[in-house]
Every structure is written in structure tokens, then in C-alpha cells.
């Protein structure tokens, strides 16, 4: 089963709505709660990142009885050094965004911690694609 979302980059308050809907769907499908929790955290983190750094983008979710596969695509500034970005505490967030509680430098590390597979491809100036896999 496939789901797609457009994430609006202008509204901080809307960030997280797609993850919310995915959670609802997973509950309707009877996905075990530990799995839902992992997906909720990883996807929410990724969605928020997309809003902060890339002015939104698209999310495609593919759900099978074996796994949940989520692809988040944006056409934002890209990540120059992915390895560096994966380190805990590393943050590019502006003061304003940090005040809102985002960008504490735990985004990517958290996504990695809660997903079974995390693939990030990025090109500076073109955009970033994040692929999250969680097995059921």
C-alpha cells in the first residue's frame, strides 16, 4: 500500500502531519506498537528536518506486511558532509529555529537509531533524499 504527501515548508505548525497520518494508517493495519513507535520517531524527525532545511518536499510511503519504506525528497540546499551531519550534537539550525526547539543536533542520529535502514543521498544545491526502512 502506498501513500504520498506534500509537505508545506512555510508552516512549522503543520510539520508532523504526514507522520501523524502514517501512524494512524499503521494502527489500522495492526502493525505492532513497537514498530509504530520507531517509525513515528524516525519519520517525524525526517519530516521536521525537511521543513527546517529544505522548505518542504514530498514523502512517499510504501507499506507491505514485511516492512515500511519511507522516501522523503526535497529540493533544498543539500547536505555537504553527511558523515559530519550524522554526529550527535552537530547542528546547522539558526538561532530562531533552535529557540523553537528544533535543531538540537539529534535529528539524524535519532533517525538512524530508530530505523532499521537509513540511506541519505544529497547533492549540494540540488536537494536531499532520505530513505528510511523499518522492518515489521
Amino acid at each position, binding site marked *: 500500500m502506498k501513500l504520498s504527501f506534500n509537505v508545506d515548508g512555510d508552516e512549522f505548525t503543520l510539520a508532523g502531519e504526514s507522520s501523524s497520518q502514517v501512524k494512524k*494508517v499503521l*494502527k489500522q*493495519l*495492526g502493525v505492532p506498537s513497537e514498530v509504530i513507535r520507531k517509525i*513515528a520517531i524516525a519519520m517525524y*524527525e525526517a519530516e521536521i528536518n525537511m521543513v527546517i532545511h529544505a522548505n518542504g518536499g514530498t514523502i512517499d510511503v510504501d507499506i507491505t506486511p514485511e516492512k515500511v519504506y519511507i522516501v522523503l525528497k526535497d529540493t533544498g540546499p543539500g547536505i555537504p558532509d553527511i558523515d559530519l551531519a550524522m554526529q550527535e550534537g552537530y547542528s546547522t539550525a539558526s538561532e530562531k529555529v533552535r529557540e523553537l526547539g528544533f535543531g538540537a543536533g539529534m535529528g539524524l542520529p*535519532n533517525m538512524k537509531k530508530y530505523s532499521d535502514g537509513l540511506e541519505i543521498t544529497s547533492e549540494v544545491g540540488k536537494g536531499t533524499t532520505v530513505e528510511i526502512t523499518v522492518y515489521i
Partner: protein
Amino acid sequence: MCEYLHSVTLQEEKCRGCTDCIKRCPTEAIRVRNGKAKIINERCIDCGLCIRVCRNHAKKAVTDTLDSLLEFKYKVAIPAPTLYSQFKDILDVNLILTGLKKLGFDEVYEVARGAEIVTAASRKLLENKTLPKPIISSACPVIIRFIQIRFPELINHILPIISPMEVAAREVKANLVKKGINEKDIGVFFISPCAAKVTNVRNPIGFDQSSVDKVLSIKDVYMKLVPILKTIDRVETLRQSSNNGIGWAISGGEGKFLGIENYIAVDGIENVNKILEKVENGKLKDVDFIEGLACHGGCLGGPLTVENSFVAKNHLEKILRYSVKVKKQDNQDMINSDLNLTWSNPIISKPVMTLDQDMEKAIKKLEELERIYDSLPQIDCGSCGAPNCRALAEDIVRDNANIEDCIFMLRQKVREMAEDMVNLSRKLPPAFRKNDD
């Protein structure tokens, strides 16, 4: 015992089949069928919201009646602290407690006292730091049921401790048995602001059998108590609770008394829902404790109360200030309960939202649901008896409704049929056709 049992019920003759309650129910547990609201038992969490929003007063909470006092030889009242807030101008809790004895109870034991014992036990549990953060209070039975249905992955965050009501009932029963009273003769009556407590007494969560025998509504007791209070000439000193226990009735009271600084007190089921979403997203790990109460204003806003919750809060605060003046000490050090307050049974999730046990089938149904939803007008009018178009789509894939239940779809079908008929009526058998037909 049947698995689902509820206090909140419909009085059919009053229901006009409008959409007020179906749209407000937090678990989408109500449908209108044959012109009457019908509660889906597995989904109802007894929040009582539908009681409040119904303009025809067709929903009510079934409680025990005062007649049931006759069933027991030794009758004990355990009033929720919310009761104290219902009487204007009464500052001395002892007066209300004396009134209860005049009403026919042999003994009174305050649930506020139970709350203090729960707090002492909670403190101990919180010290050993094994629970994942944030810890969620188990005080509100609606919230526990809500988590079972909507947030099963948060079950292990719930503080696994029995409620103040249950503690009070167990404590008072144990005391009386020690005094030599036969347990069978004792009837413990909880005086409740809350419909969910009625359900919880009959069908407890976390343990098998409640020590509470009957649940009376504050409303019913209030009516009987008011005339009695006026006739009291000697007030007995019956109060055992301190201000801390009474403060539980106000949203935030539990966390405050626990001495936790870093907590969130949230009331109103829709607000609690938002906070639990955040916990689910891993966003509130920096918070120690969440006190979520389903009713606006906490227990003071319970559906079985008589006074407006804001006014009740004002009254209760007056009582608290008065108690400080007459130097009622915080007696938490005296708590020496040998009762085991932790749950004996695990809390299980109730996946009532799941479309099918078999995930493959569930996926098929969900795809069908999305397809149906796309074809619906998506204006959530409620005329089909479901709270919104998506819920109708869900009902259809569950075989509980038809697409024609949507009046817009029905109209479209009728129109197509009418067009077909017009077209057909124009057709003539070949023998009658003219050349230009």
C-alpha cells in the same frame, strides 16, 4: 463477565438522531442508525463528552442508586474530593462528611486520603527510575482506556498504580474487617464525578476485582445532601485528608503534590490527545511526568457533577485556604499503608482501530477504504450517520455501511438511473421505428 461494559448509555426516546455527539466523540465510537445514536461498545472510553454535548439530554451515565444502600448491613461512603467543591459557602469538609453519615452511611473514608497514600507509593516507584519518561499518570481511567485504544505503544509509560478510589476502598475494608465486621456485610459506595469510574469498578484495569461495591453520582447524592446539611447541629470531626489529597481534584494537583517540578498537567481529552502524540513522536523525553485528565478542569469538570467546573474550582480553593487557617497539617508522614498498590495485571492494548487481524487483508481493506474515500464528497456532513466521510469509508470496508448511505452518492445513483430510464423510454421496438429514429 462480558468484556465491554459501559456506564454511558443512550435513552432512545430522547435521541433525535442529530450529529452532535458523533462528531465530538474522541474515538469515533458513535453512529446514527435508524434515527438513533448507537455506541460502538469496543470503542467507547466513557469520557462522557457525548453526555455533555447532547442538546436533548439523551445520553446519560448509569450509576447505582441510593436504594442500593439497603443491600448492605454496614455502609461506607468514600466521597471523591470533587464533592466538597459542589456546595457554595461550605468551607468545613467535616460538615459534608457528617451529612453523609446522616444520609445513612455508617462510616466515611475520604478518597482524598487514598490520594495521599497513592502519592506516597508513587514517589517510591518514581525513585527507582525504571519507567520510561515521561511517566504518564494513571489517575484518570478515561486516559488509560484512551491509551489502550489509540496509543498502545505508550502503555509502558503509565504509572502502574491503583487509583485513590481503589486504595480508599481497600483500606477502609481492611480496617473494618480488622475491627471484626464481616466483609460480606460491608458495602463501599464511591461518590463519583466520573462516569468512567462506574465502568472501572465493574471492569477494572490492572487488577481483577474492585473493592468498591457501588458507585453513586455526585448529582444524586447532592440532591439528598442539601436538605440534610441544613439540619446538622453537631459537626463530627471526620476529615483525615490534608489539602494535598483534596488538591487532586484540580488539574495539576497530583503532579504538584508529588513534588515533581518538571511536569505537564493537561486537561480535556482533545488536549491530552495532542500531548500523547508528542510523546509518541519522542518529543517529550525531557519531561518527567504527565498528568492527563479527560475532563476540562480535571475531575471538577466530571459529567456527574452539578456545579460549573470554574465555580467549583473557586469553591475548592476557598476550602483549601480555610483548611490552612484551621491548621490542618499535611499528614503524609503518617502514611503507613501495608497495601500493595501496584497493578497485578498487565495493561493490554485494544487494537479496535485495526481493520483486519491479517495484515495482508488489512492492507487490501485500507486500499479499498482510500478508494472509497476519494469518491466521497469529503464534506463530512454526517448525514450518513458516521462522523465524517473517512469514517463512512471505514464502515463500508468493515461491512457496517453501504456507499448509498451517503446522500450525495445516493442522489448521483438515482440520477444515473433516471437518465437510463429516460434513454430507455425513448427506445422503440424495430417494428414501430420510423426511418429517422
